[in-house]
């Protein structure tokens, strides 16, 4: 029973007095967790279905191309690196639409974000970690089929001096696409705690951008307004990056209209940089105030 004085009993609870890992460790852990989570690794089996399905769907044409090239003994790949990314753009957009909300909307919905910030984790770290994780995930999504193409080209004994620069260029392009898409996806997803609405909003934005770009460019080309047609590529992430690649990095020109000249290339490059910076800034702004 109780006595007059209060007593605290020693139940053997031990404090941890040792060294604690700091900001960088937390940010790195968050990055790894989010990057793996984008493919459902480390989460339930159901969350693996969609990302893995899309990954398989994106890699499948690469396999087919490799098979065709080896079987027909062609002297170049049946499908090139640059246009591959453009052709699978829809699948990549669906992936971003599905996984970006999974990354940030859950934290917002269950109001866990404030828990993150009650640790030695700055806003910048959180945003950087999530952004880097999403970029990595999308990059892997694109790099994998491109690598399959490259390996297939090696197996088919195609001349290396053509393949290697193309392959490396396409990887750079994949990275840029990943940066832009991840940025757009995360910004939209961070605006709403409802996952379903986030998914719909992201795909709406991306699909509409692609559609508008396609329509405007096609019409401009028909009407002969070539400069305008060239700049129409700014509207959609994929054509934006493609523009940078072809004018700055010297990749093949596969679009209907490429950015006109050096000025065009500079504009596209600046635009890409601006989009990424703007998305990063928007995310920082969004996470400045989080509720408990």
């Amino acid at each position, binding site marked *: 029973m109780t006595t007059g004085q209060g007593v605290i009993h020693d139940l053997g609870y031990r404090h941890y007095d040792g060294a604690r890992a700091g900001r960088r460790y937390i940010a790195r852990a968050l990055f790894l967790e989010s990057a793996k989570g984008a493919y459902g690794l480390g989460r339930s089996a159901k969350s693996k279905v*969609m990302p893995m399905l899309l990954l398989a*769907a994106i890699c499948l044409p690469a396999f087919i191309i490799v098979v065709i090239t080896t079987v027909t003994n062609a002297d170049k790949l049946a499908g090139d690196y640059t246009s591959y990314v453009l052709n699978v753009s*829809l*699948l990549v957009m*669906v992936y971003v*639409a*599905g996984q970006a909300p999974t990354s940030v909307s859950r934290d917002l919905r269950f109001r866990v974000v404030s828990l993150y910030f009650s640790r030695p984790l700055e806003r910048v770290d959180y945003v950087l970690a999530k952004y880097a994780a999403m970029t990595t995930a999308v990059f892997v999504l694109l790099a994998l089929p491109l690598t399959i193409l490259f390996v297939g080209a090696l197996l088919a004994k195609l001349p290396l001096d053509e393949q290697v620069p193309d392959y490396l260029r396409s990887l750079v392009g994949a990275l840029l696409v990943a940066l832009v898409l991840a940025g757009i996806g995360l910004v939209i997803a961070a*605006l*709403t705690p*409802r*996952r*379903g*609405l986030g*998914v*719909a*909003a992201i*795909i*709406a934005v991306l*699909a*509409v951008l692609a*559609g*508008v770009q*396609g*329509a*405007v460019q*096609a*019409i*401009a080309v*028909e*009407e002969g*307004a070539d400069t*305008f047609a060239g700049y129409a590529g700014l509207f959609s992430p994929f054509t934006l990056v493609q523009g940078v690649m072809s004018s700055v990095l010297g990749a093949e020109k596969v679009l209907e209209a490429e950015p006109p000249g050096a000025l065009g290339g500079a504009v596209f490059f600046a635009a890409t940089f601006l989009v990424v910076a703007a998305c990063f800034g928007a995310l920082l702004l969004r996470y400045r105030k989080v509720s408990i």
Partner: protein
Amino acid sequence: MNATVVQLTARGLLGRRRAYLLLALSLILLLLCALVRGLAGQDTDITVGILGGFAIATIVPLLGLIAGTGAIGPEIDDGSIVYLLSKPLSRFSIVLSKVAVAVAVITVFGSVTVLLAGLVLSGTSDNLAVGYAVGALVAGIGYGTLFLLLAVVTRHAVVVGLLYALIWETLVGSYVPGAQTLSIQQWSLAITERLVGSDAEQLGVTSAVSLGAAVPMLFFVIVGSVWYAGWRLRSLRLTSDE
């Protein structure tokens, strides 16, 4: 159909963010059409391309997705549907009321917009505007009911709906022509084709499915979705916060 359910659903569906998104989609279509008309003047090929390729293929399915899943998805997700289910109301009545709201929203933001877009692009020539508007209406109803059913059946309704509307109908459909027979888009295009009249083929308004096949299939999907959604709603299990 129940007026109170309609009211509650409408208030929820047209909550700020969703309404902005729906409005944005319609406005972008209209702006694009205005821009194109300014660039290229009146051109039936372009009209067919934009209305058929962009409006019906992208905007209408997205509207259907947002409105169809938004009419019931969030309520099931956070459990507030219990207030509708714990009443002596027929589940079919609940589904019908929600479908009505979704369809109304899709009609206003989709079909009416497509009509206006068509008029902007090429006036009343060749019945294109009306044809596509009716096609958009029918497609909108189809998508809305199908996605509402998806929202009752699974918590990942938006993603599944997306995979269907964009991947199956567009991507797979272009590589595997057989997939186009199971596409709401093609069914509604069949109706558009009929409304545009005899010039349809010449203008490029074609559907992979004949009218005789499209109408029953649309009917089946719409009625079937509503019925099945009501049936599944009867056995909806409520769980505690995940």
